[in-house]
């Protein structure tokens, strides 16, 4: 399976761990997140979005699956946008995920590091974070609506919210 896919309008695509998907309106991009972070990039005027399912903060030279790492996912998303004529200017970001899944004493709690890494790389690239829903101890299902740029966040056992 490729690390980045372009979705046909009207389809809903699930974005697996380490994957990046791009879609135009009215496409929907969805991921289920735990300690991973979902990075949604959106161009409001061109109604095109991308969702990366980021697993770890840094690639440290490993680039086989660019969506897996915060520091390789964003450059890859920008490159994919560039290929289809989406300019950097006007792009906005929304992020969700980065939970501490098994409580603070659980093993390999990487959620906070993922959140920090994604925020840092967005700041380096001067891309504004419009909204975020991060941390906590529960998983999230996120869906980016490429018609509106809304990121629907569902936390297990609670109500939905739109970012």
């Amino acid at each position, binding site marked *: *399976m490729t*690390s980045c896919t372009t979705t046909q309008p009207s389809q809903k695509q*699930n974005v*697996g*761990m*380490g*994957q990046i998907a791009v879609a135009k309106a009215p496409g929907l991009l*969805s991921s*289920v*997140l*735990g*300690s*991973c972070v979902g990075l949604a990039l959106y161009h409001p005027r061109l109604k095109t979005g991308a969702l990366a*399912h980021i*697993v*770890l903060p840094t690639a440290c030279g*490993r680039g*086989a*699956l660019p*969506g*897996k790492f915060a520091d390789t996912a964003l450059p890859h998303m920008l490159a994919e946008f560039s290929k289809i004529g989406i300019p950097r200017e006007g792009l906005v970001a929304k992020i969700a995920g980065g*939970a501490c*899944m*098994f*409580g603070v004493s*659980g*093993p*390999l709690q*990487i959620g906070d590091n993922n959140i920090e890494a994604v925020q840092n790389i967005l700041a380096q690239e001067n891309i504004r974070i419009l909204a975020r829903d991060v941390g906590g101890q*529960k*998983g*999230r*299902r996120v869906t980016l609506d490429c018609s509106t740029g809304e990121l629907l966040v569902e936390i*297990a*056992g609670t109500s939905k919210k739109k970012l």
Partner: protein
Amino acid sequence: MRNPTISRQHDLEVLRQLLASATHDASAAMCRWTDGLITLSLDEVREIPLEMVCGELCIDDDLLTMVVLSLEGELGGEMILTFDEENGRQLAASLLGREVNEDSEWNELEKSALTETGNILACAYMNAVTRLIDHELVPSAPYFVQDFGASVLQQALMAQALTHDTVLICRTKFHREGEQLNWHVLFVPTDGLRHRMGQTLHANV
């Protein structure tokens, strides 16, 4: 990056034999715990690309009831006992000798029944693996969680994801009087434990 030690089909088959032996011990413990009602058997041992793992295991955005146990250290891993709501409630009721609880919230007794089940399974399973690899594996206290299955599985995969783009997963299935139940145990060893099991296999083959 693929782990050459156990990525080949032959090695996976031998590893399957090692984990089937551990599952056999866990099944005996489960059978005793449930008065002969429930048994388990090894379903599959697979190496799956990270991005495909939840889809391949049909664990996506379903809300599941889970008991998670960790093996800390380099030779470690995660064990997740998963149920859907109905099956989890039925097991708890059966163990407690009560009617199935219809409340939306799980009470402490029900949680305790499931975590103890996870504890018994994990201890039997890890005792068997300990004997086979000659290294003591001690599971943590069980952790009860209700969440999206994929969210919990992701956390369990983190240790392998640090070094690999594929993950090794062992899945066990459950039976009640011959009928397969919608319960599973997922065992995700760390990279260190994968290597150790691989070395043990090669020494014995």
